[in-house]
């Protein structure tokens, strides 16, 4: 029909427009990330500068009292503690651009080495835990969507609400108490048993509890938000339409309810990443897991500003990247969404 031709070619132009929008979004966010990262790092150094704690005390520990004034002076110069916080920041930025993130006093090795050594362990536990939470929340929401308001739906809703009220460290300590201490089925901390070789089997056994704690602390939010969006979609004209044209309940839930619920779910997931990171800090500390998140705690306690600044900037970049990824996925999953560029 000739009358339809302009409409359909307009549609193709719309698609091209969307692809251009995607590129614009990526470019804009990357440009905007630069001042944000600079600002965050500046803030870290400012806080370090006005902090009442003396890094030298943290560095020397008990020996601080024994050290003479000259010794302290020498050490402070060697550790570059005498410069103002602003010039320290400028120095840090300058060397960071060349790939040198400074030296971690608490781990006594370059910051880059600390990061590359600990990053895989954090990714392993946080990634596996989050994956487990996403998969099980999707499975649960699908089961619940078959009968909104049914027994399973209400049980999952109540369970998730209770679980949401528990902070990650309570969940971690609970798991530790039940499975490691009382039952003794699983090891309660570290990467491997004392004296044992660091093997895949050892790590697999040791990561069970931290992964479970991560999954359990992220699960309730995901389940509750997914349940709310599936309930809304169940009542929509489109789902009623799918039933009216004779599709089976299985197809209605999997092909109509779930795809429509996925886009808002991805948005929640992207906005949840800061929570995942905070959760990882607590969980890695409870389980003595040698990841980056645990290093945040050690570096803060020891006033190890080089490492702390690197970790803060890394967290900032991760959060920005996750929210960009969530927005891009939302656009790809829902063809109606147009980029606000």
């Amino acid at each position: 029909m000739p009358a339809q031709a302009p409409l359909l070619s307009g549609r193709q132009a719309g698609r091209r427009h969307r692809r251009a929008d995607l590129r614009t979004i990526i470019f804009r966010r990357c440009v905007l990330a630069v001042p944000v990262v600079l600002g965050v790092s500046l803030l870290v150094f400012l806080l370090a500068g006005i902090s009442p704690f003396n890094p030298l005390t943290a560095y020397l520990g008990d020996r601080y009292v024994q050290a003479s004034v000259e010794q302290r002076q020498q050490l402070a110069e060697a550790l570059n503690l005498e410069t103002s916080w602003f010039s320290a920041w400028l120095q840090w930025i300058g060397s960071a651009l060349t790939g040198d993130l400074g030296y971690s006093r608490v781990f006594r090795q370059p910051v880059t080495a600390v990061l590359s050594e600990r990053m895989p362990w954090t990714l392993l536990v946080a990634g596996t835990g989050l994956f487990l939470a996403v998969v099980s929340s999707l499975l649960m929401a699908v089961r619940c969507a078959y009968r909104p308001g049914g027994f399973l739906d209400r049980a999952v809703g109540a369970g998730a609400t209770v679980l949401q009220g528990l902070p990650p460290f309570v969940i971690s300590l609970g798991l530790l108490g039940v499975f490691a201490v009382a039952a003794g089925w699983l090891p309660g901390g570290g990467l491997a048993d004392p004296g044992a070789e660091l093997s895949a089997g050892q790590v697999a056994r040791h990561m069970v509890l931290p992964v479970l704690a991560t999954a359990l602390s992220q699960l309730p939010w995901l389940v509750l938000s997914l349940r709310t969006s599936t309930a809304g979609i169940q009542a929509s004209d489109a789902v009623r339409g799918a039933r009216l044209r004779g599709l089976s309940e299985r197809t209605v839930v999997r092909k109509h309810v779930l795809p429509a619920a996925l886009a808002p779910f991805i948005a929640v997931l992207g906005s949840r990443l800061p929570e995942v990171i905070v959760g990882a800090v607590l969980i890695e500390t409870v389980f003595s897991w040698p990841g980056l998140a645990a290093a945040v705690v050690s570096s803060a306690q020891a006033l190890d500003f080089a490492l702390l600044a690197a970790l803060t900037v890394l967290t900032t970049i991760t959060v920005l990247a996750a929210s960009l990824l969530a927005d891009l996925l939302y656009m790809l999953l829902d063809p109606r969404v147009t980029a606000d560029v």
Partner: protein
Amino acid sequence: MSAAIRAEGHTVRIPVDIRGEAGWVHAATSVDFTACRGRVHAVVGESGCGKTTLATAILGMLPAGTRAGGHLEYVDPNGRATALTGEGRAAAARTAGLRGRQIGYVPQSAATYLTPVRRVGAQLRETLRELRGQATAEELLDRVHLDPAALEAFPHELSGGMLQRAALAFALAGDPDVLVADEPISGLDPHLAQLTLGLLRSIADSGTAVVLITHDLQALALSGTADELSVMYAGRIIETGPAVRILTAPAERYTADLLAALPANGLHPMPGLPPELTNLPPDYTYADRLRAAAELEADHVR
């Protein structure tokens, strides 16, 4: 001419809760209705007269808690009848088995009928697969005069008229014996409305029983699509018969007023307001509305 949908004394009461007060919507009262294969049976009436509830009942999708009395059944070509109303899982399974396969549906709001995040083609092929339809997606679109390029589009990328025809293609996927079209031409311009009515006519001519629910008497009178016409008022069918006869020489005052309200006949407004179907008095008729309207007018004059 064999009956495909048969209603005798079909009565529907739907529970409602208006600001904490429970009530019953008298959506259908003693409805007698027959739709035959090869014919278009139009149901007309003002908004809120119970037309859509009749469509919903034929598809077995009345809301939970609804009480239905009398008979409403689908009669297959061999004369075997299946009840379309009833409560419980058995009734739900019975009507779910008929939907799409024996009884097709064309929705009122085609714009929200399809899942927005999936392409039209993917959803049409899924429907064909599930209903074991013999046609291909392209053939179905051709039947409703739609460009096959629409298969690649997302629902929001099509115009209202295109979506309405796409919805018709979905209704035809299972090659149904009965087609229920609920206000298929509301919101379409006159040209597209005539096109849709023409399609429904040709579907009926190929042997399907078409139930056409509309409030657009104008388009109906212009196109001559309908064979039979039933006029519904306050949940009752007050007049039924050959469409030509009713459109030219109505027996009921209500039908005559409906026709007089058409632009072509001088745009005389309907007197009074249509009744609320919640807790309707059992003997309510159009005469009650005329009387109330006359009283209101008398008050106004004084």
